[in-house]
């Protein structure tokens, strides 16, 4: 079986543009005023990161704020292009960088399920087959035909999570999203992820919390300032 994800020597350089000229006025002023001119600074967010995630494995990405873990996740999800290196993914990748991407407050919960799922590349007829289990999982049967603007933020997140996990991805990329709703629903989400893992789903989990990573993952990577500091199995190198 080919690995689920291969990350090969990935580097990402951002160009920070101070005083960025977004309009004509600033561009014009820049001709005369030196301090209004755009200054560019190169910033290396990821520096030569490589790892392989086998199918069915779970990897925790640890690191402080700004260590590059979210950038790495965005590159694996295909949202950002790496400056160097490449990422190969085998299977359907579902990024959960934000729950309920594309949700529109004016549409009903039911309509939003289809909109959200189609952003993951699903056809409406495929979603129709799963819509019952999505609604059931979200526990929002009673509200599904009301506009999303009447939902609480917890309800919206529940719906978003229900869509994402019911699309049966091969690889789930989760960016600190496991704090969904109340305790009971959180436990349900964690159980669901554990069940999907048992069925062979691979997982990459971005987290601050070692505890969460040790509960879910069999491997971990610690990033600091874009550099891979540690890469190991949980249990052996765990402090």
């Amino acid at each position: 079986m080919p690995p689920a994800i291969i990350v090969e020597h990935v580097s990402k350089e951002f160009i920070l543009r101070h005083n960025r000229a977004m309009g004509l006025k600033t561009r014009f002023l820049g001709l005369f005023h030196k301090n209004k001119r755009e200054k560019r600074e190169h910033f290396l967010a990821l520096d030569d990161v490589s790892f392989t995630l086998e199918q069915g494995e779970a990897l925790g990405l640890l690191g402080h704020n700004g260590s590059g873990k979210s950038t790495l996740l965005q590159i694996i999800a295909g949202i950002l292009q790496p400056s160097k290196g490449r990422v190969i993914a085998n299977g359907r990748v579902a990024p959960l960088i934000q729950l309920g991407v594309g949700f529109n407050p004016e549409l009903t919960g039911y309509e939003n399920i289809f909109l959200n799922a189609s952003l993951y590349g699903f056809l409406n007829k495929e979603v129709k087959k799963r819509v019952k289990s999505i609604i059931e999982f979200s526990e929002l049967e009673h509200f599904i035909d009301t506009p999303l603007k009447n939902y609480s933020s917890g309800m919206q997140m529940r719906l978003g999570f229900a869509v994402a996990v019911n699309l049966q991805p091969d690889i789930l990329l989760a960016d600190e999203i496991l704090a969904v709703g109340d305790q009971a629903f959180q436990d349900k989400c964690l159980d669901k992820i554990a069940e999907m893992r048992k069925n062979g789903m691979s997982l990459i989990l971005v987290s601050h919390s070692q505890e969460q990573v040790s509960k879910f993952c069999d491997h971990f990577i610690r990033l600091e300032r874009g550099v891979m500091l540690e890469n190991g199995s949980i249990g052996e190198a765990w402090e």
Partner: protein
Amino acid sequence: MPNPIAATFRPYWQYRDLVRNLVIKDLKVRYQGAVLGFFWSLGNPLALILLYDFVFTHIFRSDLPNYILYLVIGVLHYNLFSQAVSQSCESLTSASGLIQKIYFPRILVPTSSLLFTLALWVIAIFILVILYPFLGGIYHWGLLLYPLALGLYIAFIWGIVLTFSVLQVELRDLKHLVDIALMFGFWFTPIGYDIHVLKPTTREIISLNPLTQFMDLFHALLYAGTLPALNHVLIASAWTIGTVTVGMILFRRKARHLVEDL
């Protein structure tokens, strides 16, 4: 053997329901709560036509027979262009929430913005279909070519839509400039007047406007009841190839890094 063309389009085809859902969402949100709902998409072109009809028959006299038909054809087709182009400028920038959170082919964002405009326009075009015989429209076999002419026009607009949506990301003034240019564009296109009444130099200038060529196709098919002149078809096709090529190249080069500038 896998078909290379099919292989190129498969990733887009996979997302066809995304385009559909985005267009339906825009339609639903647009007329949410309005009592008359979709009828409002008829209101704007109807008001324009009445206004221009008043101006061109009572203030500036026009000698064209069946003048209202001439005017309606021009106004409706210009409206499609101006609404699509104006709206597309902000299509990518206003979809930043999606683009930063999930990967999908970015080209679908400006494309669905165009399809949304087109969906509203199809409702407006019913005015023309219903009024056509009463305004002096001629039923002839050439009308069967109209979908081809319209398709060419939509492809031309699509090229511009792609170009402007990308440029807007780097140059946020673009939308305001475009809105002004569209006001001028109306008068630099033979919509309310016949190009043949102009002085030769003015006519030359107006002919440089690609929309003039497209208007000629529509006026020939729908107003004069003839086939359009071949040279107009060729010039219009050349413009279409031009805008689509520029739009595609620009999109290919910029699309991957768009997300960093949003």
